[in-house]
């Protein structure tokens, strides 16, 4: 279960950026002027056990900021987040992956970054390799992997991190169709086990298939909320109206 109430996140974007002590001292006499960007402006959501919430919206509408706040990576300016159970953020696959290391070494590093202990990774290692379909390349350096193999390995390692609330940012679109089907099955299984999913995606068929509810964000506000079919339809209708 995850619940958020009235989340607000503001970014003050200075017209000139001062990133050195020197500039800060030199600029003491001329105060900075800011543009305030409301990345999130009063977003609330609630997702129960065994449910999946889809978050859709254009680039810059606040989807990733929302996920990062729910994950506890950045802190909101206002509002509250309440979670029950262990949280697993999938904000990027293959975190810490390094081309100079072998697949095996990368699985260990990445697995531990995802919150497993060394023993956990050891216990699940064969399963990870089998799911990723790279049995013959365990000791190959990652730089020699194709992008598909890379993505499959990253996904297989990530899903080993066991928790109760999964925050997923656009990571379902990896591998070929066969592999994508496997990924769907994993997430459907999670739902059956009573896990909570929050899925950010630009892929509307993913949203339609997996989510029970969808919120549509625009400029940091919830523009629409409801069943996948109705919200996705409204979003697509809106996109059609945009002239380029």
């Amino acid at each position, binding site marked *: 279960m995850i619940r958020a109430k009235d989340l607000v996140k503001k970014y003050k974007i200075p017209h000139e950026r001062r990133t050195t002590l020197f500039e800060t001292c030199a600029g003491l006499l001329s105060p900075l002027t800011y543009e305030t960007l409301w990345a999130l402006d009063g977003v609330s959501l609630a997702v129960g056990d065994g449910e999946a919430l889809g978050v859709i919206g254009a680039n810059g509408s606040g989807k990733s900021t929302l996920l990062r706040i729910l994950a506890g990576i950045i802190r909101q300016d206002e509002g509250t987040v309440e979670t029950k159970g262990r949280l697993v953020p999938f904000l990027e696959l293959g975190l*810490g992956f390094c081309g100079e290391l072998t697949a095996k070494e990368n699985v260990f590093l990445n697995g531990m970054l995802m919150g497993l*202990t060394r023993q956990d990774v050891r216990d699940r290692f064969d399963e990870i390799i089998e799911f990723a379909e790279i049995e013959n390349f365990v000791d190959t350096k990652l730089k020699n992997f194709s992008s598909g193999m890379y993505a499959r390995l990253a996904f297989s390692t990530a899903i080993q991190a066991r928790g109760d609330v999964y925050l997923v940012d656009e990571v379902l679109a990896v591998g070929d169709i066969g592999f994508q089907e496997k990924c769907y099955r994993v997430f459907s299984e999670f739902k059956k086990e009573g896990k909570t999913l929050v899925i950010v995606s630009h892929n509307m068929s993913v949203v339609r298939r997996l989510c029970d509810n969808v919120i549509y964000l625009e400029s940091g506000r919830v523009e629409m909320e409801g069943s996948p079919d109705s919200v996705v339809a409204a979003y697509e209708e809106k996109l059609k109206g945009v002239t380029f």
Partner: protein
Amino acid sequence: MALTRRELDLIAELAWTDFKMRYNSSKLGFVWSFLNPLMMLTTLYVVFHLLMRSNIEQYPLFLLLGIILWNYFAESTVAGIAAVSNKAPLINRIRFRKDIIVFASGLTTLLSFTLNMIVFAVFMLVFGAGLSWHVLYLPVVVFQFLMLTLGISFGLGAVYTRYHDTKHIWEVLLQIGFFLTPIFYQVGIIPPEYAGAYMLNPVTRIITSARELILYHQMADAGSQVVTFVICASALAGGYAYFRSRRDYLADEV
């Protein structure tokens, strides 16, 4: 500051990966890393021993130990200060304790330092220098050094995410520090009226005690050791406290 099993595993894995990457990139990786101290040793030896005829007992070992300890200080602080910023992709994508990254960076340089000390032991054999039981106290000195370098890494690392010239300023300070620390000379050459202030430098205290333990088979008195300990522990406590007060903003800043 207590760490769970999972976090300790992660620190070890991050440190070990960085360590491997450092020496993996070239076949002679470790040899290269030792080339710098050796070149410094040769230069300083020629200038101060052969040309200026300073008379320090066991000068080559004295010098080499000073250089290894100073390099450890310089490398671990420079790497530690930049550690959080360099791992920005991790900090932005997963939720974990940010201090883990600084601990891991400290551990990586500690591993390189250990390798360098093994090479130093070989040099001691070559020069026929003996050891005494005093060397058993060395881990305590290394621990003090670790506290000091971690304290600086935490404190300045949290400043570095906001002000990117922190690292340049620190590098300049290190250059000055090289001459203010007894690396190629003895503490004895400092005029007595400045000695009090001079000995406040914790790196000076650490290098001096390490030399006494390893090369001269003696030990600083308890009072002096307590002072060193207090300086290093306060550096860690202060640096860590500041880092903690900033930790919620780090992901937004890097």
